[in-house]
């Protein structure tokens, strides 16, 4: 909109639904040291204290509209978004305005929210998968913003006060920093009117802060064994740094990873699951934020198979790195990635998500529009070069969640060249 908010709209009248909300081009990486979890708390408190209303009234209004409204807080962006029945769209936008423009930030509600968040942290102890992710990212991105918590810790949450939350709100929710995005059964005039009214009530602010420095992978092979009693199964994550879509070798590595562990017939799934039955899932993936994120391999074999599975994964990684992929594999992976792109954009809400991703993850303009062509351009040489130039066999982060007394020594023995070996109790915060 000229002289107005940045607004994305995907019209779709097939269902009487509207999806959307506001996304900031900044996130938890901006949380001050010692106040980690602040941005997430801020967004949740805004929702609960719209226009100084009691939270019960806000919740009842959302339910009455036939709406959902939640917060997605990441390192590089924060989104307040949801869905609403088309007939309640105007009510939804009125509430949205109250949340964004005049949050109440009641102190007692903040304290309640902090207690709820502490309970969430306790609940995480039940999930071996989340424990593995926590320690993998913490270890791989040690010292970097991406290794820091989005949700906070008991120590940092207790330090956060209402004034911190107000400052966080003023920093993130500004005209320069927000993107409005809507998809569904709503016309442009209505969306523009409502978005502009909210946008004009926000302070001008400044443009989004630059992304954090490019992360650097820790040197050597580093094992973190997260020790949890009585595990019949282990969670294993192995990986290092991947690429960002702005890197020249991003698409080549994406194609190479598809061959290695990106689909059900990829090498990893075939060897670990189909041939040996060792793990229900066996995948590798590439993540990104505003900077490079992780390349990771994920399996969860039974405890007795953990060491053998770890050894096999390292062997397969080495083979992939040293010998690359074949021309036949390249062709199949390119066809798969190009054809399946249809499902990334088969609804208005998904198309909107791609547009928003381009903006909030600092993707090259037109990244998704050119996606199929970019995949088509990848050569075998580029794919195999990307594996070697971007990934390292020497610098690997390895995380195992399991019972150390039962399998710790066996796992350590199958990792050649281990530079660092650490055992942490699973309830270490």
């Amino acid at each position, binding site marked *: 909109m000229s002289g107005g908010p940045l607004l994305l709209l995907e019209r779709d009248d097939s269902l009487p639904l509207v999806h959307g909300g506001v996304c900031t081009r900044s996130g938890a990486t901006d949380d001050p040291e010692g106040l980690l979890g602040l941005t997430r708390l801020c967004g949740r408190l805004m929702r609960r204290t719209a226009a100084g209303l009691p939270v019960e009234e806000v919740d009842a209004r959302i*339910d009455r509209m036939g709406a959902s409204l939640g917060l997605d807080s990441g390192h590089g962006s924060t989104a307040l978004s949801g869905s609403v029945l088309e007939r309640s769209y105007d009510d939804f936008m009125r509430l949205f305005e109250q949340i964004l423009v005049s949050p109440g930030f009641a102190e007692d509600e903040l304290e309640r929210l902090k207690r709820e968040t502490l309970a969430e942290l*306790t609940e995480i102890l039940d999930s071996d998968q989340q424990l593995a992710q926590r320690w993998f990212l913490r270890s791989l991105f040690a010292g970097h913003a991406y290794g820091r918590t989005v949700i906070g810790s008991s120590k940092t949450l207790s330090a956060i006060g209402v004034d911190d939350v107000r400052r966080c709100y003023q920093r993130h929710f500004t005209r320069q920093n927000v993107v409005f995005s809507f998809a569904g059964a709503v016309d442009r005039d209505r969306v523009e009117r409502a978005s502009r009214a909210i946008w004009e009530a926000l302070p001008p602010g400044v443009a989004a802060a630059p992304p954090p420095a490019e992360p650097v992978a820790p040197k050597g092979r580093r094992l973190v064994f997260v020790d949890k009693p009585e595990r019949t199964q282990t969670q294993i994550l192995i990986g290092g740094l991947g690429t960002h879509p702005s890197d020249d070798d991003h698409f080549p590595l994406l194609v190479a990873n598809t061959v290695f562990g990106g689909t059900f017939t990829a090498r990893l799934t075939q060897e670990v699951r189909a041939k040996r039955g060792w793990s229900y899932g066996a995948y590798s993936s590439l993540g990104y934020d505003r900077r490079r994120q992780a390349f990771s391999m994920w399996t969860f074999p039974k405890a007795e198979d953990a060491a053998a599975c770890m050894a096999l994964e390292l062997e397969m990684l080495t083979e992939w790195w040293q010998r690359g992929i074949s021309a036949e594999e390249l062709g199949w992976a390119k066809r798969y990635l190009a054809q399946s792109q249809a499902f990334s954009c088969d609804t208005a809400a998904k198309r909107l998500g791609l547009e928003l991703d381009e903006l909030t993850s600092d993707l090259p303009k037109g990244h998704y529009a050119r996606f199929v062509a970019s995949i088509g351009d990848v050569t075998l040489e580029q794919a195999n070069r990307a594996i070697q130039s971007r990934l390292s066999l020497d610098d690997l982060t390895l995380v195992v969640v399991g019972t150390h007394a039962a399998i710790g020594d066996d796992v350590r023995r199958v990792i050649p060249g281990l530079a660092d070996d650490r055992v942490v109790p699973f309830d270490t915060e």
Partner: protein
Amino acid sequence: MPIQNALSTSSFGPLIEHLNQGRPELQKLSHVGQAQFGPKLQIERFRMGNGLSILFVEEHAAPTVAYHTWFRVGSRNERPGKTGIAHLFEHLMFNETEGLAAGEFDRQLEELGAESNASTWLDWTHYDIAIPAAGFERVVELEAERMNHLVLRTPQVESEKEVVMNERRYRVEDDVEGALSELLWSTAFELHPYRWPTIGWMSDIESFDVDDCQTFYRTFYAPNNATLVVVGDVEPERVLRKLQDAYGSYTPAPIPEPPSVREPEQRGEKRLEVTKLTPTWKLNIGYHSPALNHADHLPLSVLSEVLFGGRSSRLLKVLVRELELASDVRASLSPLADPGLFEIFVSAREGVSAEQLLEVVDAELDRVLSEPITDDEVRRATARIELSLLQGLSNNEGKASTIGFYEVVLGNPIAGFERLSALSSVRPEDLAVVARRYLKRESRTVILVRPQSDMEEPGAPVDDDDDEPITTRRGLGVSA
């Protein structure tokens, strides 16, 4: 039969006549009916001479097709000692066929850009493929191939058993909630096959051999026990002709009736306390609930929303917000062919016992009768149900899943919209009636989970200078 008879209104007569010309009886199609699916789409129902049911929705919003195959067989069709065979078999369906080497089925789907998955539950087994429209014909050939030409050999069966046992460790053995739910159902039911888990008991999974799998395949995987749901960017003639070519040579089989077991009325509360490695107490309660086709199911689902649905629901408000006793409160009403369970799950805050949670839950359920539910509470609950149904229809996959589910469980593919229409007639007094009828303490099952002593005080964790990142990763599909 909610789909109106098509004979008088069908515009498919000439097409069907044309497609059937020169075909044997098994391949001949008939247009059985049609029904409005929401405001803009229409379901067409066909049947092939061999008994194969076909539900088709022409939808050109995206250049994709959802191709779903539902079999009327789930874990309810199993017997003690052979539990989990329906689910194991679902896994095996992605293996070798007479015309495809092991791995080729998935490889060819991926070549086409397709996404495939499968799931098994108590009443059914469901295979779903999402495909760019250009690959439609090949997907039909692949699905038809495995319906009738699967090859079962010992190495594949043994390997897949290992996979399923690992799936069980993931979902049950090392998962507190999974283990708890399994215990609840196996305690609440005494006779009905719903008492054993769909994934099966570990000892049963271990014992399966090729013969078990072949027997299961021959018994249940026949065209007259399947429904195909096709939704997407394809024209009817293209769909019907291809289905005739691919499935028309398959012969029907005698399908055993599902076991007709009437669960005896539970007289007296069943209560168990178990100990698990978990940081806080957990509470799981199961009340016997009506089948999906019962008139009480809809008001009970509205009551479930009033009590547990949104943030403004009664139990969330009291347990999470006002008293701060719980970190998580949920309920689900099973949508099954036979009576199931209304299941409540509560996770306690630190220092709070399951008994304390139960006391509050009981008080709130009593309050349904003593302090009537308001019109506004019903309005909020029905709006949430409407939102949930519509959100599930956003793409061809969602539409096909909704159609297939209601068809297989109720024999009515538009039942979702019919339930939506009926919501407006649900009154607060209806909720009181179903609360009195089903939420009875004397016929419920209660499981209390005590945290093991070495996890009872997670409030004092080992300190660490770093802090933990919380991110999301790609999750697993339901199965396969």
